[in-house]
């Protein structure tokens, strides 16, 4: 469901009257919610100001947060910047909303999901009071060229509920000229023009928001998702050599994506993998699940040969201790080069076993490994003792 958030009924009138949208009042905890079953579209009258917008939108998102896919804030905005880019009646799409608390600027900002737009993208300051004087303009202009009363609040709630939001504004008044007409005059003018602004908002909304009926068939993202396959996963799922568990499936998919981003040639990568891994694994002994584990290991090695080499070397150097069933504990993430040995002595001959294993183990080599002192190509730790 898409949700339109508009402060005033006057700004929403074109939407509420639109036969095409067919919005009907919807019972909720408070008045001002409308819903169109035909388009799976809701409209909420948030009321003016940060507090009212936050309260009403948060209540609705809390009640229906799994159903709301996108919030579209629509409304009027005052112009702070005296520039031909900002003309009365123009439509702007908002990029980032800031918040003026009255005595200072709120640090947090909220950005919309709009990366591109048929409209000019710009920032807005949501003011805690109506910006009607030139002085307001001077204070707010360094942060954004437009001012309104709700966008930041809508962004804040959308962010809290992790719902993408967009915002379109019709430019209703020039704040930088505000002192010339008086504040009451500005408010009256905006109110008189409301039907016109509302029509413009509806036209702008139609331009940027595909309604649900159209959305499903035309959304290229949907098609992309459907078409997005995974060659390797398809191959192994069809093959009788492998059995893939859900977690393995996730792992294979993510590793394959990484490899693809590194090589960019899916066909060549698949051929290489078939020759080097998939075909040999088919003739190897082992369960289908263990073969998938080996495949994952191979994919990891392709992405990070270091890690595989490192673990192989470590295994080689600690072989004697492992065979003696002496447990070796490395520091967390190998952050230090010390090791703990854990061995249980049950009989006197166990002491001898441990002594032999320790004698066979070259701790300098192990520490060199842990300190990165080895050559990956030769796969042998450096003799240079820096441990």
């Amino acid at each position, binding site marked *: 469901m898409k949700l339109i958030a508009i402060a005033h009924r006057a700004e929403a009138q074109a939407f509420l009257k639109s036969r095409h949208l067919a919005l009907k009042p919807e019972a909720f905890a408070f008045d001002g919610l409308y819903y169109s079953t035909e388009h799976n579209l809701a409209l909420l009258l948030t009321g003016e100001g940060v507090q009212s917008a936050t309260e009403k939108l948060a209540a609705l998102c809390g009640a229906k947060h799994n159903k709301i896919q996108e919030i579209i804030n629509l409304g009027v905005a005052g112009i702070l910047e005296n520039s031909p880019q900002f003309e009365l009646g123009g439509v702007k799409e908002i990029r980032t909303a800031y918040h003026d608390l009255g005595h200072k600027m*709120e640090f947090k900002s909220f950005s919309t999901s709009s990366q591109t737009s048929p409209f000019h993208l710009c920032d807005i300051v949501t003011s805690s009071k109506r910006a009607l004087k030139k002085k307001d303009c001077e204070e707010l202009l360094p942060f954004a060229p437009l001012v309104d009363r709700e966008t930041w609040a809508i962004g804040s709630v959308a962010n809290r509920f992790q719902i993408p939001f967009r915002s379109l504004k019709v430019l209703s008044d020039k704040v930088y000229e505000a002192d010339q007409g008086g504040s009451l005059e500005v408010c009256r003018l905006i109110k008189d023009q409301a039907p016109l602004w509302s029509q413009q908002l509806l036209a702008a909304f139609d331009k940027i928001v595909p309604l649900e009926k159209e959305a499903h068939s035309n959304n290229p993202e949907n098609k992309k998702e459907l078409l997005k396959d995974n060659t390797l996963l398809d191959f192994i799922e069809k093959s009788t050599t492998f059995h893939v568990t859900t977690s393995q499936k996730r792992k294979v998919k993510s590793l394959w994506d990484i490899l693809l981003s590194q090589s960019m040639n899916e066909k060549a990568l698949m051929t290489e993998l078939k020759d080097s891994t998939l075909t040999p694994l088919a003739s190897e002994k082992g369960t289908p699940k263990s073969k998938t584990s080996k495949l994952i290991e191979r994919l990891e090695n392709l992405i990070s040969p270091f890690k595989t080499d490192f673990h192989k070397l470590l295994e080689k150097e600690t072989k004697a201790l492992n065979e003696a069933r002496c447990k070796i504990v490395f520091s967390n993430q190998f952050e230090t080069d010390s090791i703990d040995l854990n061995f249980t002595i049950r009989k006197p001959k166990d002491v001898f076993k441990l002594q032999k294993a320790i004698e066979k183990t070259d701790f300098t080599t192990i520490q060199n490994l842990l300190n990165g002192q080895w050559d990956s190509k030769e796969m042998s730790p450096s003799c240079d003792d820096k441990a």
Partner: protein
Amino acid sequence: MFEKIFYEKDIENHPKTQFLLNKFSQTPNMAINRVDDIFGRVKKPYLQKRTNLNLFIGSKRGQLVKETPSAYGLSGEPHYYFIHSYNCLYECDYCYLQGYFHSPDLVFFINHEDILNEMENVVKTNREKGNKTIWFHAGEYSDSLALSHLTKELPQYFDFFKKNPEAKLELRTKSANIRELKELSPLKNVIASFSLSPKDKIKDHDLKTPPLKARIKAIETLKNLGHPIALHFDPIIYGPSFKEDYKELLKSLMETINPEDIEYISFGVVRFTKEVYHQVKKNYPDSKIHHQEFIKSFDGKVRYMKPQRLWMLQTIKDLCLNQGFKEEQLYLCMEAEDSE
């Protein structure tokens, strides 16, 4: 280039302010009291630098010259950095600036006279202590050369370092913008130090920076003019062909310069504070940097596991030694000391 220019009222008539306002005469500008009144007051999304980059011109206040973290530069000598600019035009996806200032806008501080006075004091103090060499680094919060044709401060610094031969200046850059340097007579104690990575890593991570070829060309030009050169292999990022990539990078370099032409090379493996790593994820979700296997290391920073990062440093160091660089030309940015 800039959406708006903000300048501090009391430096409106400074020649550098006037130069910038004239240079960008079509850009709307606004007088403000202090840069800090606006810059960093609100969280401006980092990637808005692509569409809505502002320039602030002001005076740097407070401590103008600071001691560097100990990982900086050759050890055993005092190192300082000075700040004449905030932020950068480039977009390196690992860059710590994206989590630092809360705004990607550029700030040029133009009171270089004050900075130089403080540097003079630092030189005096160190002279009294008997220190023979004192290092100054530019480019802690910006690229030292990328916008030098706009900031125009280099001649002032060259004058200072000509008069203070025991002091050294390092100009760190990822740019190939050497037009200002080319106009200046080389000084033994002013070193242009270029950050380099293998060409594919530059393509993947150093967004909007000049390609490797252009940087090497700039190195060659400056070297031929007699300017001292240093190199930074930092940040080093792992890949399946890591060693080969650095071999190739060194090979390309050696086609234009000799090891003895290089003052020093420093190495550092990619690392992030938790906050910066979070920003990287947010700003560059598709970056190949996320294919790397990082861990949270001993100091809370996000890094490769220790054996891997030490191996990477050692591998590149060995490659440099094989190319004929001397041990004393090479230094590793050791992590225990690294506070970036």
